[in-house]
Structure formats: C-alpha cells, structure tokens
C-alpha cells in the first residue's frame, strides 16, 4: 500500500519544492510553418536567421532590415508544454516478492513524478503496461495539467493489480501508435524481461525523440535473495516455468550477482543513450529515493 503515500498531503507538500528535470527544452522554430504544431507566439528571443521563402513575414525584423538592409527573421525560444507520460510496469513480476511491494513503489514514484510535473503545468498522464490474456497491453489516464486534477489519478493508481507478463516492447509499440509529439517518458519497471527486449523498447522511444527517464524498481528481498534456506521449487510468476533450487548462501550470492548484472546492463545502455537511469530499490526507501536519489540523478531538481 505504498502507493497510497503519493496522495497524502504531507507527502505531497514535500514534493512541492521539486521540479521535473527535463534536460533539454523541447522547442520549435515558430517561424517554420508546421501545421498543427504551432505552439504560439515567442516570448524569449532566441536567434536571427536570414529570411527564406516561406518564412512568416510577421516575424521579419524590420529594424535589422532598416539598418542593414537585410531580411532577417527573428526566432524565439518558446518553452513548449511538455507531455509527460509515466509508464508503469504492472506485470505479475511487480507483485513479487509480496513484502517488497514493488508495484506499490512504482506507482508511488510514478504518481509523485506526475505531481511534480504538474507543478509546471505540463500535461501529465499515467500509463500501466502488461500483456494480459484479454490482449490489453497499455492502459492510460487522460492528460491532466493542473495539480488540482492530481487526485483524479488516484482511482487509476489504487486500482492496479499485478498481473500478466511484462511485454515492454509491445507496450512501447502500443504507445508509439498514438503518434504524439515527443515528450517525456518516464519508464518505471523491474526490467525482468528477456535480454534485448528493453533495449529494443528504449531505442524505439528514443527514435521518436522522447526524453526518457528510467526508474529501475527492485525489491530488497529480491536483490538480497533473502529466502529461508532449504530445498524449494520456484515458479516464474509470469511464465509459469518451474525449477528446483536450494536456497542458501551460494544461491543468494548468485542472485545478487544476477541482479547486479541486470542493473549494470540497463545503466550502461541508458548512459550510452542519454537516458536518465535511476535505481529505486526498496519500497521503504520511497522518501529517500524521491528526495535524494532522483534529484542526484537529475530526474527531478
């Protein structure tokens, strides 16, 4: 029930001072005609360029033409309203280990970041993904821009239950079919998917010029492999595959090593592709993650 923390007034008050770290401003050159993509008049002058055919004459700098007898077009740096999509993994693997409450942590982080983003009046929505039997891959809320509408995320957040396979690539493909303008995509998952799947998914988002932030959620028991010693039969909650293991120090070490490998591989990929990567291990560390780790890693400021 960690996700309920994201709607507590005291908790939200601590988020008021945070701002979503959008690393590059998403600007358009207003002087170029782009049907349906005009973001409005400029506010902050950015540069000048020579007039070219087709430029909007309204932005012609008549003072320059008077002084220099050259046609120049004034361009403005316009902060566009960013669409922020928080994609949260709601697959069955996010429900285990139960005491780690990975899904709760993911939802709390996602909702918190949405709240932070709404502070800049950005359009924010939450989306949950998993491949379930009924074919659903991605479910999302409407966009909300103002913090007054933040509470409308609550039914979505509290109504999610872990189920289905992760299906990260399928979810990204579903997301891409909307053909929306590039925005910020915050991807929260345990990334327990087949090797190469998360690379393909992230690459596809990058190709669409989305700014990506990856939050890697893992449980403490999962990372520590802290299981009671003995002979057990383990079952993959998503695939149903089973195998027998003997829990003990040796296996715990192997599990820790595997988690570390997964983490390093994801972080390396993110670093190489300019993706913000932030590990979020342990639901009880929610405040620490939000107030220390995410600012340190540039997810928020």
């Amino acid at each position: 029930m960690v996700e309920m923390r994201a709607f507590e007034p005291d908790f939200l008050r601590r988020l008021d001072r945070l701002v979503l770290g959008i690393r590059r401003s998403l600007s358009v050159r207003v002087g170029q005609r782009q049907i349906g993509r005009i973001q409005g008049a400029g506010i902050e002058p950015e540069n000048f360029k020579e007039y070219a055919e087709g430029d909007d004459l309204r932005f012609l700098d008549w003072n320059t033409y008077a002084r220099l007898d050259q046609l120049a077009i004034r361009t403005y740096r316009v902060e566009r309203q960013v669409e922020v999509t928080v994609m949260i993994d709601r697959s069955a693997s996010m429900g285990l280990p139960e005491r780690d409450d990975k899904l709760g942590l993911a939802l709390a982080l996602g909702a918190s970041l949405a709240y932070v983003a709404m502070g800049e009046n950005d359009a924010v929505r939450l989306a949950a993904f998993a491949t379930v039997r009924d074919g659903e891959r991605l479910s999302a809320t409407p966009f909300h821009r103002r913090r007054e509408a933040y509470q409308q995320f609550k039914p979505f957040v509290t109504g999610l239950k872990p189920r289905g396979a992760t299906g990260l690539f399928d979810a990204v493909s579903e997301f891409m079919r909307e053909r929306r303008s590039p925005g910020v995509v915050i991807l929260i998952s345990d990334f327990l998917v087949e090797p190469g799947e998360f690379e393909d998914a992230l690459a596809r988002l990058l190709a669409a010029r989305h700014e990506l932030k990856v939050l890697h959620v893992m449980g403490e028991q999962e990372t520590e492999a802290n299981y009671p010693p003995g002979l057990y039969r383990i079952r993959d909650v998503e695939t149903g595959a089973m195998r027998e293991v003997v829990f003990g120090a040796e296996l715990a070490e192997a599990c820790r090593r595997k988690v570390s490998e997964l983490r390093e591989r994801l972080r390396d990929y993110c670093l190489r592709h300019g993706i913000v990567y932030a590990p979020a291990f342990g639901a009880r560390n929610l405040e620490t993650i939000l107030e220390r780790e995410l600012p340190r890693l540039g997810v928020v400021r």
Partner: protein
Amino acid sequence: MGFLNPVNLLYAGSIAVLVAIYFRSRARPTIEVSSLMLFEQAAAPVSRVRTLRTDLLFWLEVAALALIVLGLAGPYVEGPPAAFAGRSHVLVFDLGAAMGARQGGKTRLDLAKAEAVHLVDSAPSGEDFTVLGYGLDAHVVRSDLSARPALVAAIEALRPMAVAGTPDALSAALMRAQTAGRIDVFADRPIPSAVLAQAALGDRIHFHQVGAPAGNLAIVSLDPGVPRVSPGHVTVKSFYPLTHECELAIEADRKIVFDRALLLGPGEQATVPFGPLAAGGLVHARILTPDPLAADNDRWALAPLNKADPVLVVSPDRTVRDDLARILLAVNRNFIVTAISPADFRRSVEGAKRYSLTVMHDCFVAGVKTDSLLLVYPPAMKPVPGGPLAGFAVASALKPVRMLASGASNAGLELDSARVAKLPDWMARTISGEMPGARVTFPLAAVGMIPQGRFGLLAFDVRRHLLLDPDKLDALVATINLVRELTSAADVRVVSTGAYLDIPAGKSARVVDPTGHIKELAADRWGRVRMRPMLAGHYTVSSGSGAVNVYANYYNASESDLSARPAAETVETAGAPAPAPVGAPREARPLATVLVALALVALIAESVVLLGHARRWRAWNV
C-alpha cells in the same frame, strides 16, 4: 494375548493420517518468484533420496498414537491368577440334583468342592471369599470369609439338593457377585450364554465344569390308580446312551406289589402299569438298578383310601352341582357326595352331619361342619371378623379374566368371570389371574391350612360346564389339585421337592430330613410351620398335635440328564472370554493402563524435545 475391543484398532487409521501429514510437510514447498532469470546462475540441487528423515518429534507422535490406539483396543494377556490379593472372590456352586450324581465314589459336588479348596489354598492371604449356592434360588452360604478353616468348612458343608439348578437362580447368584473381583462358578453343565451375556462380568468370571457325562435312570411319574378298581402307572426314563436295564419295584403298605426288570432303549421313556392295588395308602416306587443319581430313583404317591368320606356340594346352579360331583368322584370314587341348592340346605339335616369336604359355588352357607372348605366363585363377602375364615373377603366380579402361569400348563386361559378375593395371610395364592390389558393380578386359586381346618378358593366361575370343557383343561387341573390337597390325609403329605408346605403344628415342630438331620421350626401365629423340602425322600414333622410324614418327589428332565458336554466343547459366549479349563484357572490382565502410560511418556518426551527446539530458536512462548 488378545483384545477386548479389537474393533477399536480401526483408529490406527489416524497413524496413516499422521504419516500423510509428515510426508506432506516433507514435500518441497513451491515459491513463486518474479522471474527465473534471477536464479539462472543457481546450481541444480543434488537430490538426496531418503525414505524417512530422522525426525524425533514425528516418531514420538507415531509412538504415542500407536500406544493409544492399542490401549483403546483393550489388549490383555492371560496368566495364572496369582495377583488378585486384596480383591473379593466369589465361589458359586451349582447345588442342583445333578451335582449329587456319583462317579467313582464321589459326587460332582465333591469334585467341585475339592477344586474350590485348591483355589482357596492357592489364593494369597487376606483374600475375601464369599460362597454362593444356587438351585431353584440363589443363596449366600457364607460371605466375606478370609479365614481359611471357616471358608473350607463352609465349602465342605455344601450339599446337593434334589431340585434343578435354574438359569434364573444362576443369574441371581451372578448378580450378587457383581462387585467381586473374580467369580468362580462350579457346575456340571455349561453356563447358558444368555446368563453370561446378562451378567456382563467380562473376564472376571471363570467357569469350572465338574463331572464327566453319564447315564441315569429316573422315575418320571407315579399314578397309584384306584385301589381295587383301576391300575396304577409308573413312568420311567433312561438317560443312558445305550440300552440299559432298569429294575423297578413298587411297594404299598410296606409290601412289594410290583417288581420287574425293564430294558430301556437310549433315551426311552416307558410307562408301566401295575395293580390295581388292594388298598389305598402310600405307594412307593423305586429303581433298584444302581445309577449315578439317586434322587430321582424314588417316588411316592398316595392311593385313595377305601374310606367313605361324605362330601357336600352346594350351588344354586344344577349343572355346576353335577359337574363338581363328577369331578369329586373322579378324584376319589369313595366319596359320598351330597349336592344341593343353598335354598334347599336344611340345618337339621345337612347341617347336622360332618363332611370331609364342602364345596360351595356362588354361595356361602354358614354353620356347615366340615374338615375342609372349598369356595368356588364365592359371592361378595365382607371381611370375616373371626373364625377359620378370619380376614377373608370377596369383592365384585370381573369379566373376562385370564389365568396366569402358575405351572407349566395353565397360562393364558381365558375365563368368563371371576371374583376378586382378599386373602388372609395364612392362605397362599397358587394361581393368579388378571384382566386382559391390566397389570394388576388377583388370586384365582389359593389354599390355606391352619389347625382349625383347610380352606381352598377357586375364584373363577365354573358355570356352562367350564370344568368339562376339553379346551379349558387348566381349570379342571387346578380344581383337581385343590380338591386333592384339601382331602389328602392329614398325617401324610406327598409333595414335589422345592414346593412350600404348610403343616399345622401348634407352637413348633421338629423336622427330620431324609439324611437324618433334625431341625426345629417355630410355628407362625396361625399355628403352622412352613417347610420346603429340598431333598428327595421322607421327612418327619413332629409337633404337639402329632406327626406328619412328608414324602418329597424329585424329577426334572433337564437336571436328571447327566450327559452334559464338557465346557471345552460348548459354544463360547459372545462378549465374554472362553471359560477357563478345569484345574488351570487363568486370568486376563489388561494392558491398556500400561500402554496409556507409555503414550503419556512419549508425549512428555515430545514436549521436552519441543522445549529444546524452542530454546534453540529463542522462542520462549512455544
């Protein structure tokens, strides 16, 4: 080794449940994980095949459960009866006539006594013994004896009676022994299974069968006939498995009037005529051939005396007067019967004579001089304040009524009507009746003998030729028996052993039994002594009013049959252990207590092990 409740072994199924729980707990638990990917580097486990783990808690629980199940099944081991000191011990002796059967110079009762004395000798000191005997009834010979001499003396004083040992008497004896720790029954025939089942004594009862199967000759009945008129008949029966000789002699007036050797086939019963006798009086039939049982070798009967006894019959109904007169003449053809209506009774004529017997039907005429009075269907009478009939009263009539059993042949007879009489204490009810559907009984026939005379009662109506109705012979038999008893000689009585007998005696009487033992009996307030001859033979009852000779006859078809099989061949009684063989008494010792104690030990040990685990786990609230 055996089990008292082997069906309880079915509870052993609970052990299977425990084992199933054990194996279920051993099954490898399945844990769901977020992804098998995290466990890719884990080595596959090396499976270790072990049938059963050494789990002390499990084995302790199995042991406790098994011990409890065994305890529920009631296991026992048999052993010599050495360890019953401090318990009460009852010795029950069959004192029926067959226990007097002699074989090799000793009676069966002698063998039983010897075995009992041996048992007493082997008992530890301090054991309390009670000696019970049963024949027609059960009685305590001596109780709570721990002193051996007195106990042996009590056993040695036992004598067989000339009566049959009945199952009811044995049941009564076993009921009296219910609280005893051990009961030893000494008898010559197996205990009926119904008696054992009813007693429900479990393994506390031990049966000792004494005597070997033997043959026997017995006189079944003796009819003296009518002197100089009709022959008498004697019936003898052989219980030998082969044809056997039987020399039979009949004496009358101390002279042998009949002596013949008969050959009787196996189990044959023969009726032999003799006479007619020359004169009435006591007739004695006896078997001269030696056989094991003597009690049924003699039989006595009284032949009617050639004396013209006057008898008066008074009834308002002419047909009843005729019927009663016929029956009286059939009982004794020497009777001179006067039959009149009460309206015709003349005090100066009929009232002036003295009668041996007066029979009054549906009327009561006072002032008749008679030795015996028989009232048949008497009219309603208020309690008589004094005289021979003091306390006698008759209430209203009931109809219809049913005759209850008073012997083997007179049960269930429907009678038209009867009157309810209140009997004085000195009268004994011989036949009872009841209204159909009602539980209250009342006397249908009664007799009393006091020094003032003899008085008999037949409470049912005999109109419409009841006494001559072939379908209602029971009423006729009851009437004849009563007439015979009322007209029998005052100084000679012939009865069956075990029957109660009232003899007018004044203040006291001296009774000499057939073995010569003398016993003084005090008369009751009506001046009579009550005796019950239990031995076959001649009793002499002497009192101030003279001597009365009592002859007790014994015969019982079941008891006289001495061919009872040994106990080992009898069918075992359900719910009770097999009778112990003679001479080797064994005792079943239950093991349930030991097993339950061991189960408790196992549970305590389990608790200790658990406590050790708890300390190791630092869980102090386990």
